[in-house]
């Protein structure tokens, strides 16, 4: 039997991808735990994988030996900024500390998405996430897989996804690169969302040169679930089976998360291109239907979506959450390319996959539901006990009888490094703030005013957005009560009672650049108002924090201020943050984007028929009174 990874078949050098360093494992087979024990001094490419020297030392300490190639890749993924929140954690705590959780929240920060109860028996889950870097590299697929990823987060909570929104930021409207990126992004969001049957109920399109080399593609999804269908990611129940559901695993986006989302983005992007993933919305649709059928039949003990960090993340998080161990046979994973090495299988970002924990009795039933919908389902492992002394179990992964991973899963999922990064107010801020709007010339005559209004209406940021929104299906599922051009999307949730929700996403990077604290509060206030004016009661917040490099103290200051502002705002409004996403390293060279906190607010209607659209109501419009509320 040959166990050597077929490196000759690896067709290309992919610049800086984990595989190039790790696939050449060694002549006799993959790098095993046993071998790691006997070759303690072997040099390992931890810096290339984005791990700092002291982080590498900690890994050795945790394992009591050097990591295997597969383990090293796993730590590099899980301890990346994107997965570990190592720079943001200390700040994000304020969300939980300041705003009351309230009685509605069934799941909050730390889960795949926050879950909010909206009636005795129904809950909704919603979250916004970024897919900025992949969308710059390959706009169509980057944006498409961004939608796919957030939808799987929603699905993992037990919900049927029911809508999407897409807050977008591009460079100058007349820049040639915008002409490349924007149509691809819009087509990708539409292509995936339309094919999945999710109405697009709103979003934003903002043009600003600050995003020229680093557009922002954020995607929000919302789903609905019966309260008792809420799912958990814990790999509970010793002896339970670990099932991989969905698409086969290929060499997609290996190194993508740790590389694309956790390092400064510059011209080397060209070389990193092969780490792009391709989405298959049809497969995702089948995955959704099969998961929902499995939930309803009570066949799922635990579930986790496979996102950017692939199997690595799903295996370690499900095991860590339960405190159990897990035994996984990697050669059972269905592959698109037979020559993939164990490291590649663990790092692959192939889309449209979920990890299920099921009891042995239910395995047959699970496989037959998958077969009905035509998706792959494979038992790849089982849940093993915690240590006899009560210590957490271990994650042991083999590949054709070679043990390539043997780690405490918590060390990957929960015990990553945490940094209190230095912060310093940007040096130019005082000057920027001194340059007040009052100093600008104002239109003095009627003609000047008219010219100003016309110029504003025609500006890319304010003009009609129909040319984009027409490419999105807003009708599918038949519950869209308000969508564009309204300020909030409104959905009917329950046809019998009229129960419904409103959602708005807003952000203002220019304002946040001038004052990130107030900028974040402003974004929250705008989304909150947009929801409130429809007649809904705002109840929960999600956010996507798009910033430059956390290693730049000025950016870190912006981040700290924005989080403080958002947390204070939520405290004042009494509305909890239920989940969100941090996207760092949005910069070109040394130039960071404007700090761009994007805030989503969810509101609830008892009866959605009472929603108030923003236009004047015909036929009663004539003679209606206009009132200005507020200062």
């Amino acid at each position, binding site marked *: 039997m040959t166990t050597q990874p077929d490196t000759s078949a690896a067709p290309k050098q992919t610049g800086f991808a984990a595989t190039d360093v790790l696939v050449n494992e060694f002549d006799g087979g993959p790098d095993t735990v046993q071998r790691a024990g006997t070759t303690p001094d072997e040099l390992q490419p931890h810096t290339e994988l984005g791990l700092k020297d002291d982080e590498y030392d900690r890994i050795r300490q945790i394992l009591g030996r050097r990591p295997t190639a597969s383990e090293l890749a796993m730590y590099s993924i899980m301890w990346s900024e994107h997965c570990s929140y190592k720079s943001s954690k200390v700040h994000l705590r304020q969300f939980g500390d300041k705003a009351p959780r309230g009685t509605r929240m069934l799941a909050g920060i730390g889960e795949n998405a926050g879950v909010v109860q909206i009636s005795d028996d129904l809950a909704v889950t919603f979250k916004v996430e970024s897919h900025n870097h992949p969308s710059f590299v*390959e706009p169509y*697929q980057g944006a498409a897989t961004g939608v796919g990823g957030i939808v799987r987060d929603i699905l993992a909570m037990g919900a049927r996804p029911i809508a999407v929104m897409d807050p977008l930021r591009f460079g100058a409207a007349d820049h040639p690169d915008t002409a490349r990126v924007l149509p691809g992004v819009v087509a990708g969001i539409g292509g995936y969302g339309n094919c999945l049957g999710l109405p697009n109920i709103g979003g934003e399109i903002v043009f600003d040169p600050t995003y020229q080399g680093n557009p922002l593609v954020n995607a929000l999804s919302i789903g609905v679930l019966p309260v008792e269908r809420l799912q958990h990611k814990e790999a509970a129940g010793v002896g339970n089976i670990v099932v991989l559901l969905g698409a086969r695993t290929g060499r997609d986006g290996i190194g993508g998360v740790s590389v694309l989302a956790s390092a400064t983005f510059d011209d080397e992007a060209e070389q990193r*291109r092969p780490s*792009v993933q*391709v989405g*298959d919305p*049809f497969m995702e649709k089948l995955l959704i239907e099969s998961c929902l059928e499995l939930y309803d039949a009570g066949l799922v003990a635990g579930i986790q979506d496979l996102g950017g960090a692939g199997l690595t993340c799903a295996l370690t998080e499900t095991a860590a959450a339960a405190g159990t161990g897990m035994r996984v046979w990697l050669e059972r994973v269905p592959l698109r*390319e037979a020559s993939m090495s164990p490291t590649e299988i663990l790092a692959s970002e192939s889309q449209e996959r979920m990890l299920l924990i099921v009891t042995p009795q239910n395995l047959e039933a699970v496989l037959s539901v998958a077969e009905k919908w035509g998706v792959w389902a494979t038992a790849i492992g089982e849940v093993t006990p915690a240590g006899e002394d009560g210590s957490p179990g271990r994650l042991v992964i083999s590949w054709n009888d070679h043990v390539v991973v043997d780690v405490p899963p918590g060390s990957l999922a929960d015990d990553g490094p945490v940094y209190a990064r230095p912060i310093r107010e940007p040096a130019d801020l005082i000057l920027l703030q001194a340059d007040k709007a009052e100093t600008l010339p104002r239109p003095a005559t009627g003609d000047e005013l008219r010219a100003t209004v016309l110029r504003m209406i025609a500006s890319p940021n304010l003009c009609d957005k129909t040319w984009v929104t027409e490419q999105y299906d807003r009708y599918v599922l038949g519950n869209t009560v308000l969508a564009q051009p309204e300020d909030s999307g409104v959905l009917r949730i329950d046809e019998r009672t009229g129960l419904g929700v409103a959602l708005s996403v807003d952000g203002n990077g220019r304002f946040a650049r001038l004052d990130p604290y107030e900028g974040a509060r402003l974004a929250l206030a705008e989304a909150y108002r947009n929801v409130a004016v429809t007649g809904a009661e705002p109840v929960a917040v999600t956010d996507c924090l798009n910033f430059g490099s956390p290693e730049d103290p000025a950016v870190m200051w912006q981040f700290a201020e924005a989080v403080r502002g958002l947390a204070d705002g939520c405290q004042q409004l009494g509305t909890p943050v239920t989940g969100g996403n941090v996207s760092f390293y949005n910069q070109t060279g040394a130039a960071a984007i404007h700090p761009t906190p994007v805030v989503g607010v969810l509101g609830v209607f008892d009866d959605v028929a009472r929603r108030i659209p923003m236009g004047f109501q015909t036929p009663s419009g004539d003679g209606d009174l206009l009132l200005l509320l507020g200062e």
Partner: protein
Amino acid sequence: MARVVVDVMLKPEILDPQGQAVANALPRLGVDNVSSVRIGRRIEIEFAGAPDLDRAREIADKLLANPVIEDFTINVHEDAAAEVA
């Protein structure tokens, strides 16, 4: 008249949902000896004068193929006489 044909296919390691969907549908047509289907694009470019291979390559590279996920090949067809079904 001569035309240049550009065949654009997904790189082998890239997922091909189209090909997969067709492959999965074949058993229903009673076909069970197909091991894989890949679907790409075929682009026929007709030149006003002589076929211009360099030009065609430039067009393919800039416009027809997405180098991030696709490869292309170029051929000249002297008045295309392939086996027509």
